[in-house]
Every structure is written in structure tokens, then in C-alpha cells.
């Protein structure tokens, strides 16, 4: 009697524990199979406080002269940009032609120099350069001190 009972308890416990573990594993598999939640892009969701009607700006309506001026300005802008674009394309075209001519002459000169010139320049890319600013850098300028606290929300999938 003393020996038989503890043995049964162990078996039942082991089997029950096994059944519990299997159920947990099945639940985990189901959760993993479900598609991961999409991270919300905070820029695309307008907060509700900005759609209040009290926030709408009240300005006098546009006069017809103003609308006409705007339309004419847009047409002038269109033409200006078109000319600018054409000039750029022409400049690039002339540069390419000049390069092709140079390579042709080089080929006439010597084949090995030509092959050396055609080879790809590995050190050229990635090419990085800081763009121009409105005013040149001020010599000896001490920017004011400040602390920047980053409050961006980080989402994990």
C-alpha cells in the first residue's frame, strides 16, 4: 500500500504536466503564426485636437486679380523651370560628348591607356559632401549650450 500510491501520483502528475506543456506550446505556435502587428507611422495619424473647427483660419477671400496674378505666375514658373531643365540637359549632353571624344582619341593613341581609363573607379562611391548653406561658417562662433531630450516612441513587432 505504501509503495503503490506514490507511484500513481507521479505518473498522473507527469502526464498532466506533459498535457499542460503541450497546450502552452500550441498556444505559442498559434500566436507566432498570426501576422505581426503593423507599427503605426506617427506622421500619418493626425491627432484629434487638430481637427477642431475652432482652429480654422479666418482670412478674407481672394480677389479675382489675386487669382489671376497667381495663375500667370504659375505659368511663368512652368516656362522658367522648363528652360532651366533644358539647359541642364544640354550641359550634361555636351559633357558626355566631350568625354566620348576624349576616349576615342585615347584609343587611337594607345590601347592600354584606354583600358586603364575605362576601368571602374572603386574609391569614388560612396561619395559624401556637405551641401552649401546660406551664409559661410563664422570663424570662432560658440554655439549656445542646450540639452536635447529624445521622446520618440519605439515600437517592437
Amino acid at each position, binding site marked *: 500500500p505504501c509503495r503503490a500510491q506514490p507511484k500513481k501520483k507521479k505518473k498522473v502528475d507527469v502526464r498532466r504536466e506533459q498535457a499542460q506543456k503541450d497546450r502552452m506550446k500550441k498556444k505559442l505556435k498559434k500566436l507566432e503564426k498570426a501576422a505581426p502587428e503593423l507599427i503605426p507611422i506617427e506622421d500619418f495619424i493626425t491627432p484629434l485636437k487638430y481637427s477642431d473647427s475652432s482652429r480654422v483660419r479666418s482670412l478674407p477671400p481672394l480677389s479675382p486679380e489675386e487669382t489671376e496674378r497667381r495663375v500667370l505666375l504659375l505659368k511663368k514658373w512652368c516656362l522658367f523651370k522648363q528652360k532651366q531643365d533644358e539647359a541642364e540637359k544640354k550641359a550634361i549632353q555636351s559633357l558626355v560628348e566631350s568625354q566620348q571624344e576624349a576616349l576615342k582619341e*585615347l584609343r587611337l593613341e594607345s590601347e592600354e591607356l584606354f583600358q586603364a581609363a575605362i576601368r571602374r573607379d572603386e574609391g569614388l562611391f560612396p561619395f559624401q559632401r556637405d551641401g552649401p548653406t546660406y*551664409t559661410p561658417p563664422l570663424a570662432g562662433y560658440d554655439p549656445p549650450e542646450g540639452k536635447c531630450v529624445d521622446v520618440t516612441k519605439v515600437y517592437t513587432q
Partner: protein
Amino acid sequence: RPWRLFGAMCLLRLPRITQPLEKEEEEMAALMGQIELEKSHYSDHEIRKLEEEERLKRRKESLYDDEDDATGKTVIMAQDLEDKWEQKFLQFKAAPRITDDDKKNIRTSLNRKLDSNLMLLVKQKIGNQELWLLPQVEWQPGETLRSTAERAMATFLGDHIQAKILGNAPYGIYKYKFPRAIRTEDNVGAKVFFFKAFLQSNDFTQTELKADYLWVTKNELGDYLKPEYLKKVNRFLLD
């Protein structure tokens, strides 16, 4: 082969400030600002300003001043904040866009015409003439044309120049025949291959070996270069 080969380097200093806007661009920018203002809603700061103006008006119109004076605390108005910011902005003095070197037209300094590309020109002796040219050096067998151009740069500016050469291929070519006196069977003329590079290092102690050098923009090239040479060089300069 009857042609002598030269490698020349066109060293460009890229612009440091933005070019001034054209008339159409300025008008368009103003129009865009106006349209943006019309289509926008009020911001928190503007709402605060409007409410405070309302309160001020009511206080002036009403005969008796009630809560605001009783509490006695000074409220910072949005208008005061704006004035304070405006003052702070006016106190800041930015560096001038047109430098001293621009006004005196010192063409040997790098600090002029900050909004356009500057190119290096040197005075070299070709045959028996002293000419203004892009720095060039004769090609020696056993090196590529790109290393010739690098050598040209190094002879005129020293070894410590950091320049990014744009590719192995030449950008342009200038062919000329020697005058009949010097021409022989083997030596009909010369071909000058141009390479382009961007100057990376900002200031460098200009250890010039041969004295005369200039940094010029594309428009000023015409003052110094010969017409045929200028025509070939202008083809591969974008500006």
C-alpha cells in the same frame, strides 16, 4: 606615335553658399508661403495669442478690472515671447556672403565667389610662350593618365592636397600641332587630356612651387585662356 601626351587637372572648389534666387524663384517662394498659410490651421501659439488679445480687449473695455489684477501675478503674454525671440535674432550677426576678397577682387585667394565653382589656373611655359593653362604635365610611359594628372596637381600644389578625382576616364581633350619649326616625323603635336577633381581640404598652406596661379570662375576663364583651348574646356564644365 607622333603625338606627345599630357595630363591636365581641372581642380574645382565647390560652392560654399547657395546661389541667389532668380526673380521668378523669389516670387514663387512668396506665393508658396502664402498658399501654405491659407491652407493651414491655427497653431497652439497662435491660439494663445488670440485669446490673450481678446482678454486684453475685454479688460480695456470693461469698467472694472476683476480677476487678473486681484491675483497680482505677471502673466507672460505670447506677444512678449515673440518680441524676445525677435530681439535675440537681431543680436546674431552671420558671416557676410560677399567676402573682403570679393570686394578687392583678389583672384589668388580661395575665399572669393563662395557661391560658384572656382578652378585653378597656372602660368606655364609651352615652347617659348608663357600661357595661362590648367596645370598639366607630360605623360611618362609606365603610368596611367590619371596618375599623370595627379602628378600635375602635386607639382603645383604640393602633396598634402585632398582632392576627389572623378573617375579614371578623361573628361576632355585638346589637340594642337606644333609650329612647323619644331615639327618632326615623330613629334607632330600634343594631346592634352583633362581630368576633373573636387577639392576636399578647406585651407591649405599654399606652397606654390611655380609662382603664378589663379582661382577663377567659369565666366572669368575667358580672360585668361586662348579661345580654342577655352572652347574645349567649356564643354566639360557644368555651371
